């Protein structure tokens, strides 16, 4: 009997995550004391509390006495420090439930992979006292967890992520080619207006210096959404777009004459895999190149990861202001 799959919480807690801090390139702006350098400087800054040292912290705030006393590295936190908002946007559409062709061992689906990364980021943000918010994008409705800097808010975020994880896992059972074919192609184009509106709302409300991390496969990226993401880069906000794909989607290892069906719009395509491989790869790269260029222009980042890469390495790269995330094999950033 197959064992019950581990929940998102279990997967998150099964291994210690690196003690990293979400460091943004830009100065934070917030009303609550946080771990990020405030844009405002001034006198009368009082010591608030200690917190554990995280790589990237300003060493001028390292409390040497505490180190001698407690034997640990501690950072003095002042009231003038302002929290940074870490906002997570997760794509929870049907395509994210794709797991790819099984090979020698099972791989996580894109949703499992990206939601775990999101949960880890949320955990780190809450540990750092940053504000944390979440938007889950799906075909039916988008679920939002407002930005809060409390530990309870992380629980809310984690609950939402877990719910999305379970829903997508259940959706995976419906990703049967014959069933999708029987249902027929979706005639109406997917509603992307709600996604644009949500991104516009975030653009208006997220404080300066927020770090927005978007997890998606970006396979259905449309111009309005691309424009909205680019707009989100304003006001010194840093947008990190993480394209999560399976190795199957990157390499296209199919052979022979096959039929393919899109899980979202149920569009049926017949193709000879051997002859279509090159064109597919080209289109895949070209699909996100404009977005990547735009984000980079405005200080953001576009990263492509595959589900066969260690998520810890991906997380380290995401949190490093200068490092590179492990790139998909053969694909330069």
């Amino acid at each position: 009997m197959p064992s019950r799959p581990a929940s998102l919480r279990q997967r998150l807690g099964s291994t210690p995550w690196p003690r990293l801090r979400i460091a943004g390139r830009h100065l934070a702006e917030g009303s609550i004391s946080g771990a990020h350098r405030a844009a405002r400087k001034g006198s009368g800054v009082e010591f608030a509390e200690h917190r554990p040292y995280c790589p990237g912290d300003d060493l001028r705030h390292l409390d040497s006495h505490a180190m001698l006393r407690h034997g640990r590295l501690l950072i003095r936190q002042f009231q003038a420090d302002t929290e940074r908002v870490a906002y997570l946007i997760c794509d929870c559409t049907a395509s994210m439930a794709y797991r790819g062709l099984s090979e020698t061992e099972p791989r996580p689906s894109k949703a499992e992979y990206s939601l775990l990364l999101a949960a880890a980021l949320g955990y780190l943000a809450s540990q750092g006292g940053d504000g944390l918010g979440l938007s889950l994008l799906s075909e039916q409705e988008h679920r939002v967890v407002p930005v809060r800097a409390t530990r309870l808010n992380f629980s809310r975020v984690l609950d939402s992520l877990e719910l999305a994880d379970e829903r997508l896992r259940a959706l995976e059972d419906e990703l049967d080619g014959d069933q999708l074919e029987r249902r027929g192609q979706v005639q109406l184009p997917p509603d992307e207006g709600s996604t644009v509106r949500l991104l516009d709302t975030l653009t208006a409300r997220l404080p300066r210096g927020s770090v927005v991390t978007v997890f998606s496969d970006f396979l259905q990226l449309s111009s309005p959404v691309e424009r909205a993401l680019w707009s989100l880069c304003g006001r010194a906000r840093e947008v990190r777009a993480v394209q999560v794909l399976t190795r199957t989607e990157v390499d296209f290892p199919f052979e022979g004459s096959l039929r393919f069906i899109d899980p979202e719009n149920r569009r049926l395509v017949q193709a000879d895999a051997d002859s279509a491989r090159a064109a597919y790869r080209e289109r895949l790269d070209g699909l996100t190149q404009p977005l990547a260029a735009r984000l980079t222009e405005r200080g953001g980042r576009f990263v492509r990861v595959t589900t066969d890469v260690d998520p810890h390495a991906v997380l380290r790269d995401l949190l490093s202001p200068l490092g590179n995330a492990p790139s998909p094999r053969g694909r330069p950033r």
Partner: protein
Amino acid sequence: MSLALPAALLLALGIGFVVLAHALRRGAARLHVFPGAHLLEHQSITAKKRSRLEDRALLALRSLMVLALALLAASPSVSCSQFALARSSGASVAAILVLDDSASMAARLDDGTKRFDRARETASRLVDDMQAGDTTAVVLMGHPARVLVAPTHDSRGSLDALQSALVTERGTDLEGALELARNLLSTTPQSDQRIVLLSDLSTAAMDEVSLDDVVIPQLSLTEPLVNCAVVRATHQGQGVAVELACTDETALRDRTLLLIDEAGQPVAAPRAADSTVLMLPWEGEEKGNKSTAARVRLSASKADQIPEDDEGVILQAQAELVLGVRADSSRAGLKTGTATVLQSGLESLQRGVFVSPLSLLPDDETEFEPLAALLIDDPSGLHPEVRSALEQWVRRGGVAAAFLGPAVERAPLGSNFAPFSPNPPRWVRHDSPGAPADSTGALGPLTTTWTDLGASHRVEFIPTEEMQVLATWTDGAPLVTSLRLGQGLVFTTTLPASVDQSDFALRPAYLELLDALVTEAALRRGATAVDVGSSIAVSPTARVWGPDGQERPVLIDGESTTPPALAHFSPDRAGLYRIGEGNAVEGEVSRRFALRLPEEHVAQPRPAEAGASAGGAAQTRREVSISRHVALALLVLSFLELALRLLGPQLGPWRARTRQLSAVRPLSS
């Protein structure tokens, strides 16, 4: 192959459903859920699912299974080559198997088996096929015909007896065997009675007996016989006279004769066997030789189909042969002396023979006993008493020769010239000068010296089929004939020995004839010899040991055993038989030599049609159901189909890619 239910083969149409199912399954190309499908360019070609290796194999297996099922339902059976008796309305059968164990059945077939073994195997199958209530018996056809297995229901006992039966060197007793078989059938209660003859049919009796009630199966024993056999070897004088029986010159080609001792070691140089009657020089122990020539061996030949008869025991002849000569010196005498031409010719052979001139022909059998041979020149007929005594003596091994001449015209009433001439001979004028110049009769190349005999008259008679013509006139009339009569031999010439009638006795061929005659007499004057299969009278308490040292059964004659009057045994093979009381070494009383029957070792087999045309034989074939084998094949196919379905995805270069909803492995390593 035949089918009990041919209509069941319609089930094979089910293959169409199998093919249809596979075709429908193959209809559309494999479908993959792929989020990036919209990035692919749609192609109008009909995508087809690449056939998997296991699909083709499964289709073939399932088709075979349907075929096997249809065949099984049709109840197939095959007609086996083995012989089987057909049954009428399922009644029990009484079958008497007549198995030929005569000498000719020892011939090897192409595959190396003996004719007898093939016949015995068929007999065993017939017995094995017998059902409850059937009666079987086995009669052996070698002379004299014997009952091997009396009528019985015990198939196992019959099979054991058949396995113990061996081929012998006996003659063929077809008539006696069939009489025995019919007598046995009369004692069985079944209404369905059969006599099955298992033989190579190499006997002239096939044309003389009724085979209407006999079933003769095809045993495929019609391969021509090629064989040479040592019939007789007699030590006589300064040599060993050897008589061979060969089917043709091919059998004797490039073969040699060798004298060997008891241990099988040669005692003299081999001599080319260029004739069926020849003399091997051997002076014996008296001349200082260390070994005793005990047997004569004919060299092996691949063509020879009966190697067992290539060796014979040497019979010790009497010290001197006595040849009786009856001739009228006034007509057949020499001008230079009182001896007759016959007498002079015999003495000139220097064969160590004693020529005894006879003034009258003996009319009592005992008077013939001392004679090894009898030569009669220009007889005027034989009275019945003389004829009877003569024939008895010849049958026991005597050699007689008659040189017929003008006296045939003066035969008194009541006399005739049997056994020399089967019909009244006539002394007639003729135009033939003599024997053909190119003829080489049985007497050898010297026969050609009879080409110009200067004979104005000759005797003419019609020879029988049993007579062998040794030399002819140019017009084909017989000049010299021989007739085998029992153990003896009868020569007849159509010219007298008298030189006044012709130059017949003045030619070298005449001495050749006399020499052959003496040799034949010498051969027959060894130790007391009998034919294989003949009955030898012994005392009821006697014990008999055969050539192989094994004791032979002594059969008591008559039904009363108090006291048993007579007993006998019948030699089954050629060689020395020791008769005595007690054990073989101390109790030996007398010896008997059993000699091979020449005709049995050269007779050609006949096809079964010959017998069928003579008697109306019939045969049936056995239908053996193979449903069990088809069912087994179907079972094997089922296992293969199951294995292929289970292992199919692991086979071939196109592995099935399936989604697996297994436990999500934690991302932590």
